[in-house]
Structures are given as C-alpha cells and as structure tokens.
C-alpha cells in the first residue's frame, strides 16, 4: 500500500505545472529524469493493480514476453528525438506521455520482469545497452539540431548523460558475470 501511495504522490508531483514545465525546459531532465520517474510512478503504483487484476495479467502476460515487448516498444518510441519535440507541441502527445509511461511501461514492467527467464532478462538488458550507447553517440555527434525545442548544446549534454548510463550498465554487467553466483538459483 505504501508503495502505491508513493507512486501516486510521485505522479502528482510530476504533474504540478511548474515542475512539469521546468523539467521539460531542459532536454536531459526531460528525457532522463521525467520519463524514468513517470515509469517509476507506474511501477510503484503497479503493485496494487497487479494484485487486483491478477487473473488478467496471468492470462495475457503469462511468461512476461507480451508485457516486456510493450515496454520496449514504448520506451523506444520515447528515445526518438521527435517524440520529445511533439510532447511539447501537441497536448495529446503530452497526454500519451503522462498516461502511457506509468500505465503501459511501469506496470507491465513490474509484472513482466520477474516472470522473464534469465536469458530473457539479459537479452532485454543487452538490447538497451547498445541502444543507449547509440543514443549517446547520436546526440553527442550529430552536427545538426535534431529538435525544434532544444538547442544543440542541450543535445550534447543529453548524449553525455546517455554515455554515463551506458558506462554504468557495462560496469554492472561485468561485475555481475565475474562475481560468484553459485549459491543462488537463477
């Protein structure tokens, strides 16, 4: 219950107009803070939802693959530069962002992740890793302004943000595979 409340509170905070406007005025905050927090809000609140509709989730997301596919599709969409642009320009895209990320990413992510097998998890992880690396490269290296709403400098900052995330993902996986997992069942 506590988790659900914090999820809802987080969602409401993100909705507060000054918070929202501020976050969206800076590219890296928009992409790497606001969007993940929206997902987090859905993930937190998801506990109750998943319990309540457990039959639905058991039926349509039995092995976690449909859920994680939805997650991947929607998060990939939000990595496209123009998606962020349009969120600022069209209110229905903004609406989709605020509803889609918690409900279609956060909740299914929570339901799917633990259902996936070890290979599935590492496959998803190793798909995001090069994707983030590519995004870093794209935003740092591209010689043109990609978004109408953000300057090239902001693009570069975002790119470095992605690069740092990629670096941490690489470090994480290295420590994971080189430390011992004998005792625990995978």
């Amino acid at each position, binding site marked *: 219950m506590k988790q659900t409340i914090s999820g809802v509170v987080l969602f409401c905070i993100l909705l507060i107009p000054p918070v929202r406007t501020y976050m969206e005025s800076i590219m890296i905050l928009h992409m790497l803070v606001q969007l993940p927090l929206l997902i987090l809000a859905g993930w937190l609140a998801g506990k109750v939802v998943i319990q309540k509709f457990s039959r639905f989730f058991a039926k349509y997301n039995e092995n976690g693959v449909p859920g994680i596919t939805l997650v991947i599709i929607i998060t990939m969409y939000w990595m496209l530069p123009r998606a962020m642009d349009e969120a600022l320009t069209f209110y229905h895209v903004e609406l989709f962002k605020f509803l889609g990320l918690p409900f279609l990413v956060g909740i299914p992510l929570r339901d799917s992740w633990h259902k996936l097998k*070890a*290979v599935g998890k*590492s*496959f998803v992880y*190793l798909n995001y*890793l*090069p*994707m983030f*690396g*590519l995004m870093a*490269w*794209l935003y740092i*290296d*591209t*010689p*043109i302004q990609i978004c109408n709403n953000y300057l090239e400098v902001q693009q570069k900052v975002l790119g470095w943000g992605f690069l740092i995330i990629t670096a941490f993902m690489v470090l994480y996986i290295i420590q994971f*595979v*080189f*430390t*011992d*997992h*004998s005792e625990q069942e*995978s």
Partner: protein
Amino acid sequence: MSAVISEKKSRNNLVVSYLTVGGIIILAMMVFGVLMLLAQGGSLNLSPAAFYQFLTIHGTGMVGAAALAAAGVMWYFLSKYVELSKKIAQVNLALFLIGVVMVIIGVFSFEYASAWTFLYPLPAISANAWGVTGALLYLFGMLILGIGFLLFYLDTGRAIIKKYGSLAKGLGWDVISGKKAEKDAPSSTIVASTMVTIVNITALTAGAIVLIMNIINVINPAFTFDPLLAKNLTFAFGHIFANSIIYMAVIAVYEILSKYTNRPWKANKPFLIAWTMSTAFTLVIYTHHMLMDSVMPKWMLIMGQVLSYANGLPVLVITAYGALMIVYKSGIKWDMGSGLIFLSMFGWVVGVVPAIVDATIVVNHVMHNTKWVPGHFHMYMALGACAMIFGFMYYLAKEDSNVEEQIFDKIAFLGYTLGILGLSGSFLVSGALSTPRRWATHFPEWMAPANFGAAAGVLTALSLTMFVVHFIRYLSNRNKVEMSPESKKLA
C-alpha cells in the same frame, strides 16, 4: 532408456543442421571465391559491380557460415557439461537463415556491395552503385543474424554461470589464483566456451550499435557520425567475431583428440592462463586494422601491434603443444576425423606466421591492403578453423552411425590440404608483388598468381564436396541404424 537416446538424437539433429547449413554455404562461397580469382586473372569477364557483389557475399557468407558451424561444434560439446536451451539454439538457426536470405537478396537483387565490413559511410554513399533498399536489406539481415548469435551466447553464458558460479570461474581464475586445486579446474571445453561467450557478446553489442548507426545514416543521410568511432566499432565487431570462430572450433581438437587417445585433455594452470590472456587480447587488438589511421591515439596502435603478436600465441602454443603430447605414444588410430584435426593445428600454426609479420607497423605500411592479408587469413581460416569443423563432421559421422570412410575421403584430404596451401600461397605471392586486395581488375603482371589460385580453389572446392558427400551419406545412414546406449568406442 529410449527416451535418453531419442533426446540425444534430437540434440544431435540440431548440431547436424548447424553443420549441414554451414558446410553447404562454405562450399557455395568457394565457388564465388574461384570466380573472383578467375576474373582477377583475366580468364573470366566479370563486371566490377558483380565482382564486388561476389566479394561481399563471399566474405559475409564465409564468416557467417563458419561461425554457425563452429557454434554447432561448441554447442555439441558444451551441452555435455551444462544444460543448454535447445529452443534458443533453434531460434539462432532460424534467425541465421532469415538473415542470410535478406543478405542474399540485398546483394544479388539490389546490388549491395560494401564488402562484409560495411565500413561507414559506404553503405549510404555508394555513388549510386546500390540504393537504399539493398543497403537496408543487408544491414537488417546482419542485425537479425547478430540477434540470433547474441541469444545463443547469452544462453551459454547463463548455463556456465549457473553451473560454475561465474564467468571468472568458467575461465578457471580460482584455480589460477590457487584457491582451487588444479584437478578441479573446469574442463577445456568450458574454458574455451567462456572465452567465446565473453568476447562475442562484446563484439555483437558493438556490432549492433554500428549497424543501427549505419541504418540511420542510410535512411537519413543528414544524420552523420564520427567515422573513426564507426571504424573502431566495426572492427571491434568484425575482428572479434571472425576470430572467435577458431576458438569455438578448437573445442573439437580438445574433445576429439582426448577421445581418440583415451587420455584427458587437462586444463592445467598454463592452459588457463593462456586462455585468459587470449580473452583479454582478443578484445583489444582489433586496432591492428587501424594502423594506417594516423589520427588514432598512438598508444592504441602500439598496443594493437604488440598484443597482436601475443594474441593467438598463448592458446596456439598451449594447444599445439598439448596436441603433440596427447598424441605422443598414445597408439592413436588415424582416420579422417583425427587427421583433419591434426591438420588444423598445422594450418593454424602456419597461418599465424604471415599474420604476425603483417601486424608489424613497418611491414604493414607496405603490406596493408595487399593480398598478403587474405593470404594469411585463408590459411588459418580454411586450413585451421574449417579443418577443425570438417574433422568434427567426420567424427560425428563415425560416432553416430556406421558409415565407412572411403578412399575418396583420403584423396579429398590430400586435395584439400594442397588446395588451401596453393590458394594461400598464391595470395601471399600476390601480396609480395604488391597486388592490392579487393581489386576487381588486375594488371597483367598480377594475373598469374590469381589464375593459379583459381585452380587451387577448384581443387579445394572439389575436396570439400567429398567431405560434404560423406556427411550427407551419414545423414541418410543414421536414421536407419539403432544407436547403442553407450556411445561407440572410437579408438
């Protein structure tokens, strides 16, 4: 009991599919190799565009098919130690076939011809030699192929971690550090598989980035990228992936020789250290492809040179020495399987020498991009890695059925050896004559070695046909015989 046998049969079936697909593609690609040499030798009238399409399909097809077959070898032996997912191996095969079809359509129907290295920005900037469709078919085809292999190695990695605790233990680091006794070291198959899992997941991740980057650039050329970084990633992918073939195939050397001689191939400390060194070196020495890129940081190039000397050597030396020791006074019975395996050690050793010469910056300034380069890698790919794969095919046929080897097989053995030596020799001679590699048209002075190479290539292809025929005879034979519960004794 019969359930065990049928499970074993169906696992063997999968390995057989890997090797059949691999063997047939390798054979088909040899034909394109011969056609290229005939064109370079002036004996065949081939438009330059067609030559480059052949070059592209030959490089892509050979590396892909040899990798697939070698992965089959690794899967066969690794699954005796850890629990691998059959489904994932099937998915890999399916994605491989889909990818291959896309690549073939891209190359032959849409004239895509960037060579298998698809070096940025060539896929997008082809001076109208090919269009967007061809490039996308090729790049997406490679991506799909890569996804299949990625799944494959994720599964091997998962299985190794599950059984041994971590990849570090798969490489035997706890034995190296003395925490564990040498007699409890992981088997040579586990060590090699761990190494390949590590380097290839790295390679495929780098490859995915650079493939998608190329795809973006092809779709919208306004998005440009740093070409030097692109080149680094491309060779991090290409070098490592092509290199991994021999490290997968070498598992056949360990397992087959120890089975033939009834002696275990012990993973002792020097063995483990050698494999750890090769793991590290394989990851960083791709910079030897960039010795001409003067803008690269100097230390990286020097590292690329120094470590290239050292790269294959630890594993090569330990394996060649081990192979001699295990065979010495063992009363081994020589047949096609053990013969090809032993030949492969020779091919590997001989192939490495000109490679090392070429990885020297001073020599590279002269030899870079001459046919010296295909000279060394044909030797070690065809006479090293592929001979291991073919040796495994004979071994499997013998273990799993009762087809007999015939005199043709022995002739083919000789033909294959001489063919590859002739082919590689002709490449090396061309290189010494300063013939550039990857040129559709040759000056008259350069033509003789090319024609000689073509003849040697025909001999090679005919010999391989015999190998494949034997394998197909085994396929039709194996379904007729009852398998005995214990696997047959070979020696």
